């Protein structure tokens, strides 16, 4: 009952500010804690369409292109996570893997609440988007101190990922995508040429990349057949340019418990930057308080 009241009040608040977060996408109570604040300067021109009959990410499309910029923040006290491998632990390849503490990257929050490694993306190419070819330049996916770098990565379908290693031991880099075939190859010690992973199909959600040799090593990749996806940086910030004007439904996803918001409705205005802060409470990140 309490949840329901909250849900409705949240929804009303959101609708009232002409942002449709929570109007159609919320399922169950988990989403109800989401609060969204909006910079007044960028709200002008937002057309709240009914959201029905949409095709792909863009619910209604006007002329021109704009940018979606935002920041994912954490509400509450940041929990301290135990390190995954403590320095000097008696593990496999301890010389390299336990040379320093290996942190738990399942929740990375900076001093003022910005959450890193959150994926913000469209699941489908919006109507009216400019056709761009993915870069042929490989994205580097590195391994150092028995950690994957970066921890979260968005890549275009067709853009190669070069898996390399800075460690003087072998790693095996094992991708676990859903729509693409898996890749599970060794990277020889210290190889800066490594091997290539080619994603040929777009994915619906980010997927795990692991090393079967070192069970704590974990990263997330997301392959998209369009450029409208980003990962938050250390400050929790992200920017997605060149979005066709109109309403879009973004996915906000974090490894802790998956979808933070499944349908974040954002209206883009031509030649403007729509900015948004997205706040989530502790439970949404799948971390015990």
């Amino acid at each position, binding site marked *: 009952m309490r949840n329901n009241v909250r849900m409705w009040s949240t929804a009303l608040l959101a609708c009232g500010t002409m942002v449709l977060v929570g109007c159609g996408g919320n399922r169950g109570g988990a989403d109800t804690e989401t609060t969204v604040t909006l910079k007044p300067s960028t709200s002008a021109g937002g057309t709240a369409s009914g959201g029905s009959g949409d095709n792909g990410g863009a619910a209604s499309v006007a002329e021109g292109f704009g940018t979606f910029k935002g920041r994912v923040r954490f509400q509450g006290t940041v929990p301290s996570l135990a390190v995954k491998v403590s320095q000097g632990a008696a593990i496999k390849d301890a010389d390299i893997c336990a040379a320093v503490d290996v942190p738990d990257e399942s929740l990375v929050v900076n001093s003022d609440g910005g959450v890193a490694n959150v994926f913000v993306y469209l699941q489908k190419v919006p109507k009216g988007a400019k056709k761009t070819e993915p870069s042929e330049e490989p994205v580097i996916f590195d391994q150092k101190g028995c950690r994957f770098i970066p921890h979260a990565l968005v890549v275009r379908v067709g853009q190669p990922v070069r898996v390399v290693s800075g460690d003087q031991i072998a790693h095996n880099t094992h991708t676990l995508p*859903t729509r693409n075939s898996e890749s599970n190859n060794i990277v020889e010690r210290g190889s800066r*040429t490594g091997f290539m992973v080619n994603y040929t199909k777009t994915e619906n959600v980010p997927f795990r990349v692991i090393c079967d040799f070192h069970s704590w090593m974990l990263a997330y990749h997301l392959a998209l057949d369009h450029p409208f996806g980003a990962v938050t940086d250390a400050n929790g910030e992200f920017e997605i340019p060149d979005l066709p004007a109109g309403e879009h439904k973004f996915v906000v996803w974090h490894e802790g418990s998956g979808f933070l918001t499944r349908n974040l409705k954002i209206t883009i205005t031509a030649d403007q930057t729509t900015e948004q802060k997205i706040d989530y409470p502790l439970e949404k990140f799948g971390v015990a308080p």
Partner: protein
Amino acid sequence: MPATDKFVHDLKKVHVVFAVSAFALLAVTIWMMAADHNDPWRPIQKKGFNLDAERTSREIDLAKDDEFLTKQQQLEQQRAAADDSLEAIQTQVDDLTAQFDEADRLFGVAEAHEKERREYLGVARANYDIGVRDNLPATELERLKQKFNAEQDQVDVLALQTERRQTDRNEALQALGDLTKERDGFVAQLTELQSETAALEKSRQQIAPTGLSGIKRTLMEWPIIDGFNSHLRIHQDWLPDLEQVLGMTSTARFDRCRTCHMNVDKIESGNLPAYPFGHPSSESIDDWIDENKYPHPYATHPRPDLYLTASSPHPVGTFGCTICHEGQGSGTDFTNAAHYFNDPHEYHEWQDEHGFKTNHFWEYPMYPKRFQEASCIKCHHRVIELATNPEFGESAPKVVEGYDLIKRYGCFGCHEINGYKNGDPIGPDIRLEPQTEEQKQKVDSDPSLFAGEMRKVGPSFRHVGDKTSDAWLQFWTEEPMRFRPTTRMPQFFGLSDQFKAHGGDETAETFEPVEIAGIAHYLLDKSEPLDLVHPDENYEPNAERGKELFATRGCLGCHSHKDFPDITEDFGPELSRVYAKLLPGKAGFDWLYTWVKDPMRHHPRTKMPNLFLEPYTLGEVHIDPAADIAAYLTTKDEQDTSLEFSHATKNTVDESALLDLTRLHLPLSADDKNAVLADGGQFPLDASGTVKGDEVELVFRGSAVAGGDQTTFKADFDATAVGLGPNSELAWTSGKNRGRKYKVASFNSGAGSLTLADALNEPPAAGDTFVVNGPITHDMLLNYVGRRSISRFGCYGCHDIPGFKEARPIGTTLQAWGRKETSKLAPEHIEHWLHHHGEPDGSSTHDRAQEAVRRAEADEFATEEDEQNELSAAYFYESLSHHGRAGFLWQKLRQPRSYDYEKADTKRYDERLRMPKFPLDEQQIEAIATFVLGLVAEPPSSEYLYKPEGPAHDRVEGELLINKYNCAACHILDLPEVEYGVGPDELVSTPITPADHPAAIEKLLELNPPRSGKTGKTIEVGEGDDKQTLSVINFHGLLFQRPDAELDLEDREHYFDLWETLDVDDVRLLPGSRMIVPEASLVSEKPARGGKFAEWLVERLMKTTTQGTRALAWQKSPPPLYREGVKVQTPWLYEFLLDPGRIRHETVLRMPKFNMSPDEAKTLANYFAAVDGAGYPYQHIDQREPQYIEMKNRELEDVLAGGNEKYLTQSWKTLNAPLCIKCHSLAGRTVKVADPKKDVRGPDLDGISRRIRPDWLLVWLFKPQWVTPYTSMPANFPAGQDQFPDLLGGNASDQIVGVRDALMNYYRLIETEGVTIYEPPTPTAAPPAGEE
């Protein structure tokens, strides 16, 4: 008056008589011929021909479509035009034609001339050869040689001339051809265009000719004339090797069925029936063709791949019809052929339609459709091949179900099905295995005897006293289903409805409790103590952990439990309430602990395997899984109050009923019975002192402790109580002195030992037994009644019971029951019973049958299934009322004691029927009936028996064992098959990445040859403008992920991992490819054969252990046995099956040790190789041969460290580089596992050389994902990486082969190279200019 001619021969009269009789004779002759001509099959054949002609006409019409006609017209016009233009230059054409004719003539002349001269040349050659043979003088030979040369010269000249003439002719032809080329081209095109229709027209002309031929054909149908090779005639299949039994002799079989069923073997392209059977809407053949449904007898036989066609295993010319269908093959009308209806409703239809009557003069009418599969087992004695066959699939499910049920419920414990007669196979063989060593030796020593193969299906009672109580045994025996509804144990007691129908059954009510008490008493009295094992004294079992272990350690592969409702496995008993049955407290726990830990301790022939539930330590915690599981299962479910049973309630036995029952059973005169049953009465030993039969329970027994002159004995009783003293008599029951009586010299009652007075000519041996009579006690009476009851009901057919090792099955044998003379069945008053009662609710079966037929005729059934069930009952009822075998069997299984209806007056209690009631439904009964009716013990001549050889044989035998040991509970044997629609260009060949080794593909294709995924089917998806037709493909693979339920329907996709190499047109998908199957285009998903438990466990582990990662969950579960045959070495598999060691460290459970014989292990090991077409039973490992190693040494000479090291040394180093050791223990080094819950650990590598086949290993090392898509094992030596530049030339491909060869030579290398830790040199050069 003298007799005159006129008086004797009144000519006028004579003429009249003659005329009348002549007309009469003519009329009779005509009538006879008409009657003879009036065969019912003639109109059928005519209609058949009409149908054929009409179909051909339709095909012709279809072929002559607009396109055809336009094209034809166009060509004809073109030809006409060409003809016209030729006409314009007619003189030129004529000239050239004349030239050609002349040139052709001259060529012919020259050719003939040359040919003639060549004959002379041949003669000259032969003459010379004869001269050589006859050693003619040189001059003579020279002359002959000259002659030959002269002839040769002439021939050469003529040959030249012929050649010239031929050139002339060809030139003339060419000239003419140039002129008529255009016209000839059109003619050729026209002929080609018309070739199909011409062929069709030709065939129509044969069936339905027009013109003169048509008149001739009509004429040939006339009486008399039709005797001269008419097209209407009886079609006879002559089958001299398939004899049939007629009366008391057997004779060749000839089947005339195809006289009417003329299209049975007609197929069309794609091996499909040309006339598929169906129920068309009318009698008109036009409708039949329109609807493509054909009624009998015009339809084609189903499954042309399996039956009748020449390429099928049962071609009609060799098998005929009646060998499978029965019936009178020589009959040519509906009734005479002994057709048989499938249900009474059909019977009524046939009566109306064909004037059908059952043919009482033919002993074996056709099998009704419901029993059609019965005949398969005439030749298919192993039966299982009818359930699974790589080519034909599941071809006879019903008879296989019957066979399975008979094996499952242990029918053979009482009813032997002996598949051999005088050493020859006569049918399926389902008998108990030899029960004693003597029986086994007898079978082994006589080649004409074959041992039974079945184990008793029930548990052993040898140690039952350690397991449960007297109260439980009684409670259970009385009505097993009361405790466990899913039990296979039938009900023996409380089946008195047939007596109660007429005023109750006091006798049974009095005697049955005594019998039940007696059985329980006997079993407990004979129970031998079990050597129980116990957990550590201080161990505290944890039931909660036990539940988890019960779920994951494999118990649910065979058992079910209400805590795990998704598992419905019933190979073993349902275990939800097992706590109630075991002895209360520690005693029950200890028994269960012993049982789950070491089942064979309780019963040496049990099917329950040893699950290796050994104690282990996890972190700080010591775990004894067997104790935890026992604790879980013995924890009472307080919620369950439905069970009204207590071990403490001991039933009291009605003493007078016990005496009455004993009196009934005693094989003595009335006076003797009274004497025996009087107070202090004793059982009289006869003169020889032997006691046969169950009366042995009424005397006291002892046995010799040690043999020899100073024989001492141990009495199993209190000697004083029996009154045993000097001069008492002992009688031998076993040993060489069997049947003799001896006097006791002395006895020592304290020690219970005694000595004999007689000097024995044959001193007894240790273990010899004796009896002595004494006053009979209450316990002895109970034991006696119990033993009598066990004998009478044949309990030992399913259970190992002390004292019954030699006992024979009590029931009638079934191997020829399908031919049992119906006069020997005893229906007794069953018709009365079924008329007034018969149904479980007490209503009349007769009414049920009548109602079924009425509803069928009125078309009132709501569902097809309902109709089938009710008409099935009506069929059986009808059969029973005509004393049919099928009906008898049906009622016997439904209500086994109902044949005792109204028999109470003439049957003593112990003469009543004994058949128990099994928990079978009517469909199961029908399946059993199908199997039993097929047991005819009349195998056709031996070449017809299915006797596969080589791999096909091993496959059949292996399948039987797979069922026997329930291998498919844990292991997937055939992967799931998914069918779905793909659009054009949707599939893309699996890319070969730069990390792949091109050489590896070839090896992969050898081990996993590509299969075409095209099905030829299509599916329509989408609506409106988006509607499109997709072609359907199928593939085999495992589920990766189900669709996200939150997505819109059109976005939902299923994901699978492909396990096979799949070709779809030009696209080649390699194993490990991710298959994306949109929900909308998914056609079907056929589940895996086997592996239900594994799939369940994977889902569970994903939730509990692997954070949703399916691949890791699969690695912890029983692996699919996909292409196992090409993977493992057969001798290793043989040893592994007998004594399975731990291979995988990841799995949460282990392959258990089954109670399997070496022969069975061999068969099963061969099975897997046979299924995959791999060589077996032995494998030669080339990689161990000196020639191979030397070859590698030479091949890699340049790169082997300047020739200082040998190939294997470097290979060994590669294996011992810092790579394999990351996950595998090898060469004396143990893999480092810091967190056993998370760190992946592969199998130890010391056993690989004996376990894995070298080719498979190579592909595995190249790219493990191609072999097992879910594996964690990476491609360790990707092409293009240079991990160990100083080993094997730094070539990754050579390093893979090197690792494989090092593994194959593991034991040699550990001897020669020893423990080696190879560290690659630190790279000195700076890393290549990279991306940083």
